[in-house]
């Protein structure tokens, strides 16, 4: 597996998501189909999906999805994991051999729980320890990449068109209450397996259409807090920013959105709601290095919901629609119509206006 620097394939994107507010399960087939009308937004150099609620039988364990470049690397990584984790199940992620997906790495999954003795001796909080382990493997173990590490969720990604990636991973056999999808058209970085979306950490996953001009400023800031950007694609930093703001700093989703897609100062100054003005002033002052500039439309997945967000200038498209208990989000209305021909209340959120959809308490 070659990474950025060893090869470079200079070459837009498509995103899509569906969620049931009642926690009803949907097979992966629908979300795969949603990518078909947006085929031309991708160029075959990356596709991926995240599903939530897909591992109910192992819901108390972190599901590590991993790429390995060789059997040796896998053995080494397993030995490392066994030092700190109980591994309750390890298996090859089932895939189909199809002509459109080639040169796959070794793709494996582990359901794990950190050993209590390790947590106690390190005085470490569980999620923090898991996140640090992911960073350590991705940064320090050549040829091994954790591309998914949440509970009862999983990311599935590859080099190829998204509809082929979905078939490759047999996603029609998984059932989740929430799904996101991505078709990639890499503009600055190579189309390699680790560079496909979603980018995940713990149960956070991000699919992104766009290109962050503030990448390096964001990266330098976030790496001060133990995160390591190893996948050489701008979207990766958004995932770590969201983990930092939501899990570590304890911000609400809306506040985190106001940090990364902060309104212009002129817009903040013009706010008549004084509390709102104060809040935005505070957030922009506290986290200036986490303002994400450049075009983006993203869908953030998390345990109990989704958040869709556009950059404040809205330089990428995003459409939202609803039907009964379901909410659909996509780069194009055509994708929503493919999932639900009778979707209602089709609308486009404004730039910087987060759309937050939560699954009912207890339904996931």
């Amino acid at each position, binding site marked *: 597996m070659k990474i950025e620097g060893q090869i470079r394939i200079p070459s837009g994107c498509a995103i899509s998501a569906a969620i049931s507010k009642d926690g009803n399960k949907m097979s992966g087939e629908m979300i795969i189909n949603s990518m078909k*009308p*947006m085929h*031309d937004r991708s160029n075959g150099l990356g596709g991926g999906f995240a599903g939530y609620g897909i591992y109910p039988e192992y819901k108390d364990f972190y599901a590590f999805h991993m790429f390995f470049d060789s059997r040796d690397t896998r053995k080494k990584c397993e030995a490392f994991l066994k030092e700190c984790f109980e591994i309750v199940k390890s298996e090859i992620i089932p895939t189909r051999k199809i002509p459109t997906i080639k040169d796959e790495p070794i793709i494996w999954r582990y359901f794990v729980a950190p050993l209590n003795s390790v947590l106690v001796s390190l005085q470490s909080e569980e999620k923090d320890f898991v996140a640090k382990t992911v960073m350590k493997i991705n940064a320090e173990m050549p040829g091994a990449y954790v591309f998914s590490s949440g509970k009862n969720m999983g990311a599935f990604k590859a080099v190829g068109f998204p509809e082929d990636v979905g078939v490759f991973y047999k996603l029609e056999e998984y059932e989740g209450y929430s799904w996101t999808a991505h078709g990639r058209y890499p503009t600055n970085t190579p189309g390699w397996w680790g560079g496909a979306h979603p980018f995940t950490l713990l149960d956070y996953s991000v699919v992104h259409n766009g290109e962050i001009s503030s990448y390096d400023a964001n990266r330098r800031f976030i790496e001060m807090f133990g995160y390591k950007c190893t996948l050489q694609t701008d979207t990766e930093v958004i995932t770590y920013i969201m983990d930092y703001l939501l899990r570590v700093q304890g911000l609400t989703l809306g506040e985190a959105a106001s940090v990364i897609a902060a309104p*212009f*100062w002129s*817009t903040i100054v*013009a706010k008549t709601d004084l509390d709102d003005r104060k809040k935005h002033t505070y957030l922009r002052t506290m986290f200036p290095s986490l*303002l994400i*500039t450049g075009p983006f439309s993203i869908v953030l997945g998390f345990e109990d919901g989704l958040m869709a967000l556009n950059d404040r*200038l*809205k330089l990428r*498209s995003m*459409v939202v629609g609803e039907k009964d208990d379901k909410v659909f989000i996509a780069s*194009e*209305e*055509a*994708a929503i*119509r*493919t999932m639900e021909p009778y979707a209602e209340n*089709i609308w*486009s959120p*404004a*730039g910087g206006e987060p759309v937050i959809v939560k699954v009912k308490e207890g339904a996931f």
Partner: protein
Amino acid sequence: MQTIDAADLDYRAINEALREAGNDFIIEGCCGQKFIAAGMSHKNLTINGIPGNALGAYLNNANITVNANAQDAVGDTMNEGKILIHGNIGDAAGYAMRGGKIYVQGNAGYRAGIHMKAYKEKIPVMIIGGCAGSFLGEYQAGGVIIVLGFHKDNKRIVGNFPCTGMHGGKIFLRSSCEDIDFPKQVTARSAAADELDEIREYLSEYCSDFGYSIEELLSEPFTVITPDSKNPYKRMYVAN
């Protein structure tokens, strides 16, 4: 009248079918195919379903009716003809259009009419029935953009930063625009009777297309925005 079933066709196949003999077409089951009717002349086309991005790009005197919403970049760089949308349109509608008409019943996304231009008898016209998103008429260099504000929710008739970089053409908003901030390099004022007369022909046509009454439409005040050549546009993107 020929019917094209778009269910299993990509955009190339749809456009090839449209280029064949005949002028009148209906596309059924459209779902996201982009570039429909790009560059075409002398066609009358009705679309059922959702057309993809860049519908009618470079359109050169064809008529397109869409019985649904349309996506981004409707009428990109169109030259002549008419696009009628019985729904909303996405972002960047009429991007750099230099002639023809885009009439929309519903709302427009961001950057409607970005860089529209005009030359002599070529005057592009865009009419939006509902409200428009931010950056309406960004870098507008010519032509006429009209927003009617028929939308029912409480949204402002246009979002933030309208007319940024505008240096030609006119925008008419059917509102007194007290809640809208315009940039310093444009002049916004109450539209005079003779200015409304200039656009009356377009408004009448719009009313007959969508079944509105012109008297009712004209019963509200209009604000007209034109560039102020003494105070030209300065960049906004670089300084945050």
